[in-house]
Each structure stands twice: as structure tokens, then as C-alpha cells.
């Protein structure tokens, strides 16, 4: 199996080793690794925290992890603090999204809202390993990425309500979450749009280190996107350039098998997305995205690799969204059996089981966290409810960094200097 391989799995070149690696993946799982709605599915249908990781759904096992397992007396992947941190983050994501659904049906939120239920392991597994200066670029399914990165729940909820205290002052909305302070670069509605932006952020990090000589700048960027995006041209263009220039980026595919009503299998000639990495000269890794500990191990390697300057990694996380594509999607096309199968692999339940079985924390402590998160989310809703809507004058703000961009008015002065300028509306 993969354990016998002496060299690290993150060799950048398309070596024969990687190909045989590929074969071990395929051979260890009968027919294909994962194929959504079909009956023949992956081996690991139950959360498998087996330390030997026989399931094979994690392709990458690095030297570092092996050593850690041998050194540590308890042979566990996380400490108690880490466990509780991961648990809290995932519960926050879940509780927040559930509250969003409630608020939407009560009319407090509107437009397009895309919920992340079921995919928390990916967000928590990756983002909790980042520093504040590392960047995250996401798609329209970005509430939980924002929360994991540290944007306060109050700010996100206010943004969703369209209030002026939101993280984008109510101007962005559900799909456009930005935070300079937390280096969350959005929040893009178009799929594939965030990938070049993330590649650019990684380029800046490398540039700062090499050209501007900020020797300690080792910021990593994570780009999150879905399975549908992997057919889009922008994705391939960025894989090429990131590998060419060895940019410190990790491309994280949240493969939840469905794009609105279009199954991944119906739209992709080769559904195994991780294979597209080696085609461009970077490692491609497939991991069970319903298992936060496995995701975390893979993430550690990929992020460390990027930080060392060895270049990008493509990580495909096999995950599932428990709800429809958005709150407007009736979700009729997905097989209820498939949904039930994945519901059994709920990442939060799995982590809870792990923590309790390995005596990292007691049930009571976890319940206390649940209660705390409920209070945080309710407080966020109250805060958002009580916050004011944006004032009329805010309509014309933030269009430009330099509002002289609105030009010179008929009286010869800059229009932004006219004190009545912000009273204009549709007919400006």
C-alpha cells in the first residue's frame, strides 16, 4: 500500500511513482473510488478512524504522520484542545447554516442563499490550520468558510440580513463575503471566478518573499471550489500557472457530486478530479471529505508543502451537501438513498464519536460547546435584527476608492464634493 513508499508523496513531477500510486488507489477499492448515485460505492461507508487507515480513501500519508504515530504514546491524531476546537468550529458552521434556513423562510434573508450543511469537515479541516495572514478564496457557498476563518458570526448574520453592520455593510450579501482583516477574499458568484483570484493572492505571497525581500512571508492561499468548476477553463489555466511558478496555493475541490441538478458523472468525462493535478505537474490527492481528521492530515501536508515553497497541490475532498443547492432548490433529483447514506457519515457525529471513544473529552463538555454555539448564533440573530438598515447615503459609497471617479458635475466641481450628492438614487 501507500505506506511502503519511501519517497514523500508530494513529488512535483509526473513520475511513474505517482502512476503506481494511482493504481494502488484504484486497486484497493473495488470498482471505482466513488461514484455518487450508483450502487457500487466506496469501501469506507462508515467513518473509519482506524489508525492504519486501511480504507485507502486517503491517498497521501506523509512521513511526518507516520513518525508522529510512532512517537506519540496514545497514537491519536489530535490533542484534546485541537479536538474541541475542531468540534466547536463544525458545530458553529452547522448551527449557523440551520439558522440561516430558518431566517430565510421567515423572510429576514432573501435572494440566493447556499448552505454548507454536511461539508463542514472540509472547511474546518483546512482553515483551522491557517494563520491569520493566510488567505481563503471561496465560492457562493461561503458562510462557513468565513466563520472558520474567524469572521464573527454577528458580522456574517448581519450581512445576510442586509444590515449596515454586516461584514460588507450589507452591500455584498450571502454570496459575496469579504474580510480584509481575516484575509477572506470572497465570496464569488461565478464558479471558477475565485480560482484565478486565489492564484493571484498566492503569487503576491511569492512576490513579496522574492522580489520585495520580505523573507518571512510564507503566506499560503486556499482556493475552495466545487466539482462543477473542474470542467471550467479557468480552473485548468490556473493549475498550469500555479504549477509552473510553484505558487503557495492549495486547490481544494469540494466534490459534493452535484451541481444544482446536474450530477458530476453526467457532466465530466473523467470524474476522478484528483487525477487532473499530475497532468499539470502537481500532486493530486483524494480524501474522504466527511472525516475531518483525514482532511486535516492531508491539509497539513499540502499547506506545509506550499509554505516550504514547493508549489501547489490539488486536493479532492469527497463530500456531500445535505440540503439542496440553494434554499430555492427543491432538491428532487437526488436519490434519497444516497442522501441517507451520506447522512450516516455526518462529520460532526463522527468527530464526536472519535472524541468520546478516545476519551479526549466527555459528553458533557461537548454538550456545553453545543449550548455555547446555540447562544452565539442566537446572539448573532438578535444583533442582526437590531442593526439598522443602510442609510440612503450608503448607496453611492464604496463604488470607488477615490470617489472623484464620479467625475465633475455641471458646476465645475467634483460631484462627490457636493454635499447633496449622496441623495441621488436611481436617476443619478
Amino acid at each position, binding site marked *: 500500500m501507500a505506506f511502503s513508499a519511501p519517497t514523500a508523496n508530494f513529488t512535483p513531477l509526473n513520475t511513474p511513482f505517482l502512476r503506481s500510486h494511482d493504481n494502488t488507489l484504484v486497486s484497493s477499492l473495488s470498482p471505482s473510488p466513488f461514484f455518487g448515485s450508483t450502487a457500487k460505492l466506496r469501501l469506507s461507508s462508515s467513518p473509519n478512524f482506524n489508525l492504519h487507515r486501511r480504507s485507502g480513501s486517503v491517498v497521501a500519508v506523509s512521513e511526518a504522520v507516520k513518525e508522529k504515530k510512532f512517537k506519540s504514546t496514545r497514537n491519536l491524531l489530535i490533542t484534546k484542545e485541537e479536538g474541541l476546537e475542531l468540534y466547536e468550529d463544525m458545530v458553529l458552521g452547522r448551527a449557523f447554516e440551520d439558522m440561516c434556513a430558518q431566517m430565510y423562510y421567515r423572510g429576514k434573508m432573501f435572494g440566493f442563499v447556499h448552505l454548507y450543511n454536511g461539508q463542514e469537515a472540509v472547511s474546518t479541516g483546512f482553515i483551522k490550520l491557517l494563520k491569520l495572514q493566510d488567505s481563503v478564496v471561496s465560492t457562493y457557498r461561503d458562510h462557513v468558510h468565513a466563520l472558520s476563518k474567524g469572521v464573527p458570526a454577528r458580522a456574517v448574520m448581519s450581512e445576510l440580513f442586509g444590515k449596515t453592520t454586516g461584514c460588507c455593510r450589507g452591500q455584498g*450579501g450571502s454570496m459575496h463575503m469579504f474580510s480584509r482583516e481575516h484575509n477572506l477574499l470572497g465570496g464569488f458568484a461565478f464558479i471558477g471566478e475565485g480560482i484565478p483570484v486565489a492564484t493571484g493572492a498566492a503569487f503576491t505571497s511569492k512576490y513579496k518573499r522574492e522580489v520585495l525581500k520580505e523573507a518571512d512571508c510564507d503566506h499560503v492561499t486556499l482556493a475552495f471550489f466545487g466539482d462543477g468548476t473542474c470542467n471550467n477553463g479557468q480552473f485548468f489555466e490556473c493549475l498550469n500557472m500555479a504549477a509552473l511558478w510553484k505558487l503557495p496555493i492549495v486547490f481544494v475541490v469540494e466534490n459534493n457530486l452535484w451541481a444544482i441538478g446536474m450530477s458530476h458523472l453526467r457532466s465530466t468525462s473523467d470524474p476522478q478530479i484528483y487525477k487532473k493535478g499530475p497532468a499539470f505537474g502537481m500532486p493530486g490527492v483524494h480524501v474522504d471529505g466527511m472525516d475531518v481528521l483525514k482532511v486535516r492530515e492531508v491539509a497539513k501536508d499540502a499547506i506545509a508543502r506550499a509554505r516550504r515553497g514547493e508549489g501547489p497541490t490539488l486536493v479532492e475532498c469527497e463530500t456531500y451537501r445535505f440540503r439542496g443547492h440553494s434554499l430555492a432548490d427543491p432538491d428532487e433529483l437526488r436519490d434519497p438513498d444516497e442522501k441517507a447514506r451520506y447522512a450516516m457519515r455526518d462529520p460532526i457525529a463522527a468527530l464526536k464519536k472519535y472524541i468520546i471513544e478516545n476519551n479526549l473529552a466527555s459528553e458533557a463538555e461537548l454538550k456545553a460547546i453545543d449550548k455555547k454555539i446555540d447562544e452565539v448564533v442566537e446572539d448573532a440573530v438578535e444583533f442582526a435584527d437590531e442593526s439598522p438598515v443602510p442609510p440612503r447615503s450608503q448607496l453611492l459609497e464604496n463604488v470607488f476608492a477615490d470617489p472623484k471617479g464620479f467625475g465633475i458635475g455641471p458646476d465645475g466641481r467634483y460631484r462627490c464634493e457636493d454635499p447633496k450628492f449622496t441623495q441621488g438614487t436611481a436617476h443619478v
Partner: protein
Amino acid sequence: MLAISRQRILGQCFQKIRPAVSELRSYSSAAKQITVREALNSSLDEEMSADPKVFLMGEEVGEYQGAYKITKGLLEKYGPERVLDTPITEAGFTGIGVGAAYYGLKPVVEFMTFNFSMQAIDHIINSAAKSNYMSAGQISVPIVFRGPNGAAAGVGAQHSQCYAAWYASCPGLKVLSPYNSEDARGLLKAAIRDPDPVVFLENELLYGESFPVSDEVLDSSFSLPIGKAKIEREGNDVTITAFSKMVGYALKAAEILEKDGINAEVINLRSIRPLDRSTINASVRKTNRLITVEEGFPQHGVGAEICSSVVEESFAYLDAPVERIAGADVPMPYAANLERMAVPQVEDIVRAAKRACYRSVPLAATA
């Protein structure tokens, strides 16, 4: 003769759509009400059955029955070879559609919204619009690009832009924008039958609205001429031009103005390119005042072109400056109250009409 009188009667009927259904029955033999969605669906259905070269492609058009259910039932009827669910690759599948059109097929490419057409705009302009010219007439591109355009409700900056002005500025394209069910049916059929690339701008919020249609409209050979605007409501005091959803707002504004003694003429442009300059100018020569209404950004918008055309051709007839009502010059905000301010409302049209008629004090340029 009968056709003309029926047309005028239908024109008057559109002023009082909801309350006067019984009145309608006395004019046309069976005035059915259909939604714009049903109108589009039936047009696609009829054109696909009439011509086997017509096929649909787009995201979620097949099994999902269409992201906005416009293509409902078509996959079952025509099969997956003619109703293609594509991966999320606008540039790719638009290019494929254009290529198919080069070789004689008639694709109808759906963009989930026209905002996504920006990913494919290179193919729309460079491969489709310019080909007949570049090949000196050897290659024509009988393709239709359709989808919802403009603002919906609370969908944010990247989902709310109106592309009428962008596409209408490009030679080689025809740009149509229907308002009611009759427009939807007639213009879509005309677009599919047309041998040139047509950009068909629908509106998501109109899909669910019902309008009365006559038997003539429901006939499968019905189609409307491209390049002809329609006078939805006749008047003498001021001309209001609009397209798509703004026609509804203009009609409501006209009712309000009627109470103040201002008799407004509402023109439904239907065709943005080619623009029906003669109808607009004839109307302005009658009323002497013009207001243009659109949802898109003000600079270089449709209203700017109409104003320019009127100044060029009917300058001496203008009694007041042309009023241009457009969306706010900002990316669409998300917050509900800001969004309402960023899109023209009926009150804006009423206010502008009064200004044009000098019924209220003219305000400064920023108001």
C-alpha cells in the same frame, strides 16, 4: 381592416389588464391568460417540433426542467440529443453552439442568467456576431442566446446587471427583449427562425406573470417582426419608452399620470437592436416630450441612444429636455432598501414625466 382594429383594441386592453377580463371577452373570441413562462415554453416546443435542426443547450435545461422551468417537459418530449444538459462551461458550450450554427443547425443556447454570458462573450461577439461579415456572407449563424437579464430580487451585484446596452452596441447581433406573453411568444419564434445571431433578454420576475393572449398569438405560426416597437398605450402629452419589466412600471406610471391630467404614450421597444427609431420619433413628434426608462446602468445605456436619435431626427419638435431614467450608477447592492433605490420605481417615472411636462419645479441634476 379587422386586424388593425383588433390590434388597437388589444393595445387598449393592455392598459387595464387585471380588472377588465370580462371586457376582453367581448372583443376577442377566447382571451386566454398565459404566463410568460408558458409562452416561452410553448414557443420552444412548437419551434422544435417544426424544425428538427433546432436544439437546446444550457445548464440544467434537461433533467432539472430548466433553472427557471422555461424548458419544462422538453427533455421528455425531444430526448437528450436535442435538449442538452451542459457542464458549467459557458465559454465552451457557447462556442460549441456557434460552431453547430456554422454548419447549419439552429441552437438555442440558454444562459442561466445573462451575467454568466460574460464568460462566453468572446464567442457571442467574435464568433457569432462578426462571422457573416468576416466571411462575406458565406457563414451565417442562426443561433439564439436566451436567458434572464437584469435585476431579480436580492441576488447581489454579480447577478443583477442588465446587458441590453452592451449587446445592442454590437453590429451583427439582433437584440430582443419581450415584456408580456405575446411578446415572448412572437419574438422568440422570430428569433429562432431568424438566420442571424439573436440575443433574447428575458426577465426573471416576469416569468410568473400572466397576460391575456388572443387565439392569433396562440397559433403556432405566430411571430412578431424584429425591429418593430409597440405602442402599448396611446397618449398625447409625453412619450415614455421602456422595455422588459419597465414597460409594466411605465404603464402603472401612466395610470397615475392620467389622474393628474397627463396623457402618456407608452412604447414597448421589444427590439433593442435594431431600434425602432421611426416609431419613437413619430411618437415624439406627436407628444413633444420624451422619457426613456431602463433598468441598466445609465452611462452608454439604451436611453442614451434613444435620446441621441431623437435629438438627431426630431430636435425641433422637443418642448422639453429628454429625461433618462436608468438604474443607479453603482453595482447592485444586496440590502433590500438599497436595492430598491438602485432600480427605477414607478414614482421615479411619474416624477420625471411631471418634470418633462413642467408640472413640478425642475430639480438639480443629482436628484
